[in-house]
């Protein structure tokens, strides 16, 4: 049986652990054995985004120590995968041994939908949902990793689900980490537009693959449009299982 190491982002660990559980459940479903290293904490994005490179380096080295021996690492977060793939080698560029380990690891880490579709060649996760869904193209997933078709293939394989177009699907939702708190007026305007596009799409559910976007869009909907839901694709696929065995 294939073994895959799961990297659970700090946002998921602290606020959205059910996404981690859904990820593990899906991997088991497709016959892969997920392992979870207790030593993992955070990829270091908050530090590098705030300019604290020395601290980010320490986080990167810790991450490489934890995950360095794994054959494959999978994560339900595109921004974290981008951090590891593209920022770690640059961050550690002055220490050749660490840089090499980072470059090596960058080949073995994947975002979840990318892993399922491109590596495992699986699209049907046995889910069914009788309704319309729309998909938000998160910035790091789309522009950072070039991942767009993979989540849509997973959605289209869901029995009964209809993927409807979302206006400005690839427009940024306004999260940007600290940006949402530091420039709330601009962020609010951006997330309001995103929510508006969701509402006018006619979709019953909005799906995405990025925990940050989920907190932002979900948080805005909770305050302003309580009936409208947004879900992480992993949670959606794990929850709406055909067999009626709803994973919580």
């Amino acid at each position: 049986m294939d073994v895959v190491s799961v990297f659970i982002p700090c946002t998921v660990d602290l606020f959205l652990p059910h996404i981690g559980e859904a990820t593990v459940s899906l991997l088991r479903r497709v016959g892969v054995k997920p392992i979870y290293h207790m030593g993992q904490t955070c990829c270091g994005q908050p530090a590098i985004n705030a300019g604290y490179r020395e601290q980010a380096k320490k986080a990167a080295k810790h991450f490489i120590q934890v995950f360095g021996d794994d054959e494959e690492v999978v994560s339900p977060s595109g921004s974290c995968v981008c951090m590891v793939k593209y920022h770690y080698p640059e961050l550690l560029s002055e220490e050749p041994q660490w840089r090499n380990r980072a470059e090596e690891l960058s080949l073995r880490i994947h975002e979840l939908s990318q892993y399922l579709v491109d590596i495992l060649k699986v699209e049907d996760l046995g889910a069914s949902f009788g309704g319309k869904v729309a998909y938000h193209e998160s910035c790091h997933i789309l522009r950072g990793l070039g991942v767009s078709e993979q989540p849509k293939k997973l959605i289209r394989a869901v029995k009964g689900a209809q993927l409807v177009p979302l206006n400005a699907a690839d427009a940024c939702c306004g999260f940007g980490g600290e940006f949402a708190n530091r420039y709330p007026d601009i962020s609010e305007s951006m997330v309001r537009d995103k929510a508006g596009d969701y509402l006018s799409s006619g979709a019953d559910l909005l799906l995405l693959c990025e925990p940050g976007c989920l907190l932002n869009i979900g948080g805005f909907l909770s305050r302003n449009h309580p009936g409208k839901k947004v879900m992480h694709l992993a949670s959606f696929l794990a929850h709406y299982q055909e067999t009626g065995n709803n994973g919580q």
Partner: protein
Amino acid sequence: MEVKTEQFSEVAKEELRKAYTFLKAGATFVRIRRETALSTFPDAAAAQAYGAIIRAEAIARLPELLEEFEKNALSNGAKMFWARDANEASQYIVRLAKERGIKYVTKGKSMVTEEIGLNEALEKNGVKTWETDLGEFIIQLLGVPPFHIVGPAMNIPVAKVRDLFMEKIDLKEPTSDPVQLGHAARIFLRDKFHRVDMGIAGVNMAVAETGTIVNVENEGNIRFNKSSPRTQISVMSLEKVVPTLEDALHLVRLLCRNCTGQKLSVYVSMDNGPKKSDEIDGPEELIIVIVDNGRSRIYQDTIAREAMRCIRCGACLNGCPVYRQIGGYAYGWVYSGPMGQVLNPLLLGLEKTQDLYRATTLCGSCKSICPAGIDHPSLFLHYRAKDVSGDAALRAKKTPMMERIFFRLWMWAVTRYRLWNWGVRFVRPFVNKEAHGGMLREVGGLFKGWFRSRDLPAMAKKTFHDRWIEAQKTEFRSQKSEATTEKI
């Protein structure tokens, strides 16, 4: 031009109230035009990548290319002046005007002349300036800054232009027809061109190989500025130089497609020096003013110098989700949008421009659009890192003490998972104090910005770490009991 970069947040707030719906509707239109134009390349991605390589080479070889440009421009009969800073550049041009008894100049659109405050310097010394690009003409009459680096007056409603022209340029019949308004401006400016003795324009590309100045435009006013007066002044910043004419032409193809979705602008003009003795048209003297204004200092930073690749196409503004919300005024200076966010901090210093490299979600649209291959998000992170180190060369101010302490604590927790888990358990009751129905609606202090319009899930009572441990225990227990059952 007055620097208002430190008022970013207030101005952005004001601008958001205006709800620029035209920016959002326009963004889709502009995007389709750009993509359609780029699709006329056999391989659009390769064409963009090639442009990036040309600009990368130009910047890598900047010092030698500038010297080659000078040598060839001078042998074409042009004169050249190297201006160390804004003041030197504008005072030199004022002196040229006074020496020649110039009463007024006409100007083609040039961002660098706004950077050096040329119009103010000329007016102060009794030389009237007339902007001849229609958008620049409108904002000059209104006395407002540019809203967009390519379309400086795109936010001015037609009715306002009509009233302005009736007041200032003798428009007789009120009309909201943009063609008729353009015609009124044309008649007015024609008169200025008729008698102009000194024309000032910018430079899109300065070709090192041939000493050629290249300009692209849709209105023809730049050509007028260059060819009708006796004296042509072309003002350029250092980074405009490109190695060869072939390079320049490829960049022109990219510039026009990315800028306005045209395969080529209506006018493309190239100057190899002033009028030759056997030619009947052209200026008698062509003076090239090359402006440094801090760029050779920036050049020392091998990462930051990437910002100098910019060819001023403005496509990054059109694609930016933040610019689409707030428009150009909030950026507080000549250059707005993502290109202003990478350039202004270098020219004005990081301390004065803190918001410019932080008011971004790092969405990467700019980077994905840029024909010069600028990685804006990486540059923003570079500037933030320079802030943390208090870098003197980029005039950075160190970050606040509380923030530095926070990240030290964060680093300890991140590298020690037991401390991380303990920290979470410690912090959770304080954070979740105000939670209702599993959601937080208010956590005061540092996170006010988030909670104004958004909720947040309460911190989970059991983190993923906790749940994994529990699940392992349950599995172990059930494996044990299975083994026991089997025995029976």
